[in-house]
């Protein structure tokens, strides 16, 4: 019974924790412009993150060590450093976007300018990371993030032509009035939003925090293969309601209020209140994850004591990195650069950094010296290698497409 409860909780928190500011903004933006014609990119991203999260969870369960520690040891300090720099920069950009997202969500219910909330949000994030138990923060924000299921309710309330929606998903096409380059630019953005690097190394570091062993591999797989796809389904619901409500009125999403508007149209004030709660939970949960991930990345690479499974004074350097990351992220939002713009760039830069994050996981999960009899199977290897090819293409094309399309214009 206890095991079933733990598995259910794991799945629910995986669903609730899957969606962050990148998923919210990118899916609403793309839905309002392309309908569901780019759903293939989200679905591809979900398959990719499931494959690599399963691997990284298995690596954590078997070795009991963090990703960056293993990468440095297995692939050498130079490659490890390149991996660290790319992952850290993208993660701190995402962290900045999440902090801005929390403040924007609070602005929607207070109408007090988001910039005034940013320092308080930063303080709250740091205090929670410092004081609250890992399992508690993961469960509370993961479960609260489930309120975003209101997007599925809104979709049902809108009573769409289900056949038409399924057709848009099953038969990808580019709307004739849209250019080919922006179409692929947004495909990469959706791919990057679904496969954000921090999600994988937070998942594996979380496994170490929770002291996973080989016995926990099955639980980790259940979380990944059920929780993540259901979380991805929420992303598709966000795109679908935007397509149904905003696309016919030529509205392109460029604010968090715009992301919430279709829910208000379909599900009224209560729906709107629930979705804003979901925004706060999703962005706060992701801010905690990205903030911790900044600390995990640096500490694991340099071999410092890290994690919340030890008292803060025993992992002082880890907590200093987290604190400095909070300061940088808060400062980044206070520059007054629009957090939605930061989000849009963060998902594209995520796509650029993907190979450096995912390639080492594939190497280590194939190494019997680390994994013993738990190395990748043939199917897992074939799929992961194919995906690595897709990731490489996306990473190579991301920056040129960003420049050529002026960031999707």
């Amino acid at each position, binding site marked *: 019974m206890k095991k079933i409860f733990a598995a259910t909780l794991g799945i629910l928190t995986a669903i609730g924790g899957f969606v962050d500011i990148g998923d919210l903004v990118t899916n609403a933006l793309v839905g309002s412009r392309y309908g569901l014609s780019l759903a293939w990119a989200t679905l591809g991203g979900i398959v990719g993150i499931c494959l690599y999260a399963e691997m990284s969870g298995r690596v954590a369960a078997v070795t009991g060590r963090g990703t960056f520690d293993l990468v440095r040891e297995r692939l050498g300090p130079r490659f490890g450093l390149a991996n660290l720099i790319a992952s850290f920069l993208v993660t701190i950009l995402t962290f900045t976007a999440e902090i801005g997202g929390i403040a924007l969500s609070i602005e929607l219910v207070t*109408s007090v300018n988001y910039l005034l909330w940013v320092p308080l949000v930063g303080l709250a994030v740091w205090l929670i990371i410092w004081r609250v138990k890992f399992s508690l923060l993961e469960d509370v924000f993961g479960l609260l993030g489930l309120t975003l299921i209101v997007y599925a309710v809104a979709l049902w309330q809108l009573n769409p032509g289900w056949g038409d929606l399924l057709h848009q998903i099953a038969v990808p096409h580019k709307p004739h009035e849209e250019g080919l380059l922006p179409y692929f630019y947004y495909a990469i953005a959706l791919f990057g939003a679904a496969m954000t690097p921090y999600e994988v190394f937070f998942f594996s570091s979380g496994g170490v925090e929770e002291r996973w062993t080989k016995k926990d591999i099955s639980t980790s797989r259940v979380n990944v293969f059920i929780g993540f796809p259901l979380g991805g389904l929420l992303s598709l619901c966000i795109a679908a309601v935007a397509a149904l409500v*905003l696309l016919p*009125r*030529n509205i*392109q999403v460029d*604010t968090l209020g715009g992301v919430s*508007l279709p829910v208000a149209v379909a599900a009224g*004030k209560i729906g709107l209140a629930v979705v804003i709660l979901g925004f706060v939970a999703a962005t706060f949960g992701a801010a905690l994850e990205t903030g911790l991930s900044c600390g995990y990345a640096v500490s694991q690479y340099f071999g410092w004591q890290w994690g919340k499974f030890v008292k803060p004074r025993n992992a002082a350097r880890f907590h200093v990195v987290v604190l400095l990351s909070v300061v940088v992220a808060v400062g980044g939002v206070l520059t007054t650069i629009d957090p939605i713009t930061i989000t849009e760039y963060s998902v594209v830069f995520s796509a650029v950094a993907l190979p450096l994050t995912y390639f080492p996981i594939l190497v280590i999960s194939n190494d019997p010296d680390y994994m013993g009899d738990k190395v990748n199977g043939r199917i897992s290897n074939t799929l992961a290698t194919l995906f690595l090819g897709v990731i490489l293409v996306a990473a190579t094309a991301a920056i040129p497409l*960003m420049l050529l399309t002026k960031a999707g214009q």
Partner: protein
Amino acid sequence: MVCAACVGPAPTTASYRGKAGHTAEDALSELETARLAVETAERGNMLHTSLEVLLSEAEDAYSSIQATFDSIQPPDSPEADRIRDRLDKILSAGSDGLAQLRIAARRGDAAEANSTSAGLGAVSQSLRDFSDDPRA
């Protein structure tokens, strides 16, 4: 990031026409966001604070779009001048309407907000027509 965000000049009438078309699309998006928010509030489906934020953000974004277009140096051609005059008039009408919407929403004057929103429907249609064919 900077390269992607900057506004370049429009050396030819065709490129100016393209930029004007994009401006109309972006302005239409902001105008329709504000109108949809007001319509949703009219049905009792919108939190007052969220309505205020949505209207204020739409107005700010609209102003920025208008200012960006105004900052583009048009090429020396009669067609470019016609495009500029035509779009300027539509954008100004939209800007006035958005300000009225914001004021009415903050005063809680639903009747004024609804009538202004309905009036902005014509501006939206003009922007739609313009983005379809800036030369018309």
